[in-house]
């Protein structure tokens, strides 16, 4: 056993270190993987302008919904689709009326190698690649949109044996950026160069909106965050001009 005279100051020091965290309101936010970059930037601006802070967890929407259904700690959900927030509203875990569409996702066919993907996606029918990466269509809206595009081009059957699935869109990006998959479908926000507004590295085809059902990304306030002023403040901030500018900068369309 440690003597009290050693232990007690240690506990006091620990409490002092913890204290500042309880002065400013902090909210815990579950963020769809595709929104990682813009949300990191938005959270920094949010802290500067409101004094509140946001702790961000990135992952797939399905996982966050499962976690919330089993007592997860999140106060705000920024999903990759509309169904995640809807599900939590039905479960009585989200605050009715707080849901809104914060961004419309854009799908890109991308390769880490320059010159691989042409600006009309002809490579998909021409072939010459061994792996085509996409996010699991059962779990990720960007994966479902990718399957829709392949079906529309009539290439789903032909390309099926080449498909490798990432668990979420971030993992899909990993497969392509390490060149293990020559090309694949990712979110524009992952590959955009925010200064030029074009695809930053490698080569890509920004798929026309008409080729897939819009990826309507929904935000919702969760019941866990009702008491926390920072949670509502963050959702309000998401609708503010500075936040919308950041969302747009990363290639998303805005909901009208």
């Amino acid at each position, binding site marked *: 056993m440690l003597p009290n005279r050693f232990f007690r100051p240690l506990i006091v020091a620990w409490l002092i270190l913890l204290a500042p965290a309880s002065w400013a309101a902090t909210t815990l936010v579950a963020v769809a993987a595709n929104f990682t970059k813009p949300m990191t930037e938005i959270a920094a601006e949010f802290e500067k302008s409101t004094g509140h802070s946001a702790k961000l967890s990135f992952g797939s929407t399905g996982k966050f919904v*499962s976690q919330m259904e089993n007592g997860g700690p999140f106060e705000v959900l920024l999903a990759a689709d509309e169904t995640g927030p809807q599900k939590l509203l039905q479960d009585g875990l989200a605050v009715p009326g707080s849901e809104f569409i914060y961004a419309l996702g854009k799908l890109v066919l991308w390769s880490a190698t320059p010159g691989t993907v042409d600006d009309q996606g002809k490579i998909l029918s021409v072939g010459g690649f061994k792996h085509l990466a996409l996010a699991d269509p059962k779990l990720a809206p960007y994966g479902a949109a990718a399957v829709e595009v392949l079906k529309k081009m009539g290439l789903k059957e032909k390309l099926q044996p080449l498909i490798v*699935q*990432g668990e979420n869109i971030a*993992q899909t990006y990993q497969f392509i950026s390490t060149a293990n998959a020559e090309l694949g479908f990712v979110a524009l926000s992952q590959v955009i160069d925010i200064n030029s507004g074009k695809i930053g590295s490698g080569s890509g085809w920004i798929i026309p909106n008409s080729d897939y059902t819009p990826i309507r990304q929904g935000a919702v306030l969760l019941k866990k965050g009702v008491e926390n002023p920072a949670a509502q403040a963050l959702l309000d901030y998401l609708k503010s001009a500075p936040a919308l500018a950041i969302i747009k900068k990363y290639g998303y369309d805005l909901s009208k």
Partner: protein
Amino acid sequence: MLTSADFDTLLLTFKVASISTALMMVLGTPLAWWLARTSSAWKGIINAVVALPLVLPPTVLGFYLLVMMGPAGVIGEFTNWLGIGTLPFTFAGLVVASVLYSIPFVVQPLQAAFATIGELPLEAAATLRASPLDTFFSVVMPLAKPGFLTAIILGFTHTVGEFGVVLMVGGNIPDKTRVVSVQIYNHVEAMDYSDAHWLAGVLLVFSFTVLLTLYTVLKTQPTAHQLK
């Protein structure tokens, strides 16, 4: 109930685990024998390397493998040069990853078993003019039987339970890299809890039964120490 896709993942998992375990025994036995008997300066380093997968998060191993086995990685360039293409998203890649991931579970029990045997039985065999190979098969292997049993079972079950590495290098391809742990994870994420329960239950019962059998058998096996 289990769907046919679930059965496929179970089958694939056992296939990966069987092949990996066989490979690990072939590679791990000489390695463990060397580690148990050497006084080389390399012993510490090799021991540490073998034990690394025990402490590293599977994500670290998975990340390195994905990068190194990719077309721009060292291993990827080598496998491309051999003409077999790159390993991620393939069954072979999964086996390679599993071997690296589970090898401490094979080497460590073997090493411990070999070390317990000591010099005496080996010297006795040598005085009877047994060749080193003969000594290994007729003296060491019977004495180290509990070690071999533990190594095979732990190597196999640990591979069955592998998740993080497979998720990172597998690509979730049916019948090639979609193993049971990934399938359960996907069921949970897709909120198919009843499917997840069935498959998770099967795995739980399997693992418990195997381990229970192992420990029951081990209890009835004399240890090398008692034999001495």
